């Protein structure tokens, strides 16, 4: 754990982290892009999840829908990761110790594992429905735990 703390302190002292921490404008600006990116991740993936569950978006097949939607989900996720890393760097020791922050990462792993399983196990209807439900629940909880970070961060 000493090693982890050293890494966090090193990150905190980098120029980028210091700039975000000490500017009145940079943190909210990066955070705004982070929120936009998350909204796009969840707003796009929810269209696929709801389609898998059989609610709405029925005009196209699942395959057509995922081909149209998922590149935008992945691009938005990349943007959310980069901006999230910048926010984390501005105050790494406290984010790392924050309960909702850790929960959010656990849920991200779960959502990622679920998505990987869906692509590996293919398109059997029951599995697809279950996968859509798990994905939707994960992303709802990710948004809630992310919002909770702002109320609990030291």
């Amino acid at each position, binding site marked *: 754990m000493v090693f982890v703390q050293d890494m966090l302190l090193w990150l905190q002292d980098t120029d980028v982290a210091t700039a975000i921490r000490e500017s009145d404008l940079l943190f*909210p600006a990066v*955070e*705004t892009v982070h*929120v*936009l990116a*998350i*909204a*796009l*991740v*969840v*707003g*796009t993936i*929810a*269209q696929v999840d709801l389609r898998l569950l059989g609610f*709405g*978006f029925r*005009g196209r097949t699942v395959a057509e829908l995922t081909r*149209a*939607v998922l590149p*935008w989900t992945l691009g938005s996720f990349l943007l959310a990761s980069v901006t999230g890393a910048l926010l984390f760097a501005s105050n790494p020791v406290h984010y790392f110790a924050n309960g909702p922050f850790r929960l959010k990462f656990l849920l991200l792993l779960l959502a990622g594992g679920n998505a990987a399983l869906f692509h590996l196990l293919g398109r059997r209807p029951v599995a697809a429905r279950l996968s859509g439900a798990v994905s939707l629940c994960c*992303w*709802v909880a990710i*948004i*809630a735990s992310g*919002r*909770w970070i*702002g*109320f609990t961060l030291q």
Partner: protein
Amino acid sequence: MIPAFCNWLAETRISAALGRVEWVVPGVQSVHLLLIAAVMGAVLFLGLRLLGLHGTAESVAVAARRLLPVIWGGVAGLGATGAVLIVAEPARELTNPAFGCKMLLLGLMLLVTLHVQRQLSRAPGRVWGAVTLIGWVGILAAGRWIAYTQVL
């Protein structure tokens, strides 16, 4: 007048009740964010389709018939959850310049969306795609900025 209204609202029983339960504001904000995600997901594909940059296998009208109900339904839910947040902490929003910007932009974008909806049979111009994408991103940004421009 607005500060007086804030004070009156903050002293109502319902505002006090919402303020006493500490999970109400973060919980309702989380639902508000989920609805923002739903709206932004629909806005993304509507804006791109209007611009002709994505999903051109479908007509604008077909895409809009799928996406517009998500936007209108989402906005209705956002109004309801937003109202709860205002009652819980009136001065945080009602005396806040970022909130004023957000409401102004929202009003404009509702008119733009209505305009697009009415033009569907004649294929709305591409410019409305750009206006849709930029306008809704602006609403989201102004909303996030409420936390940083509190006056009281």
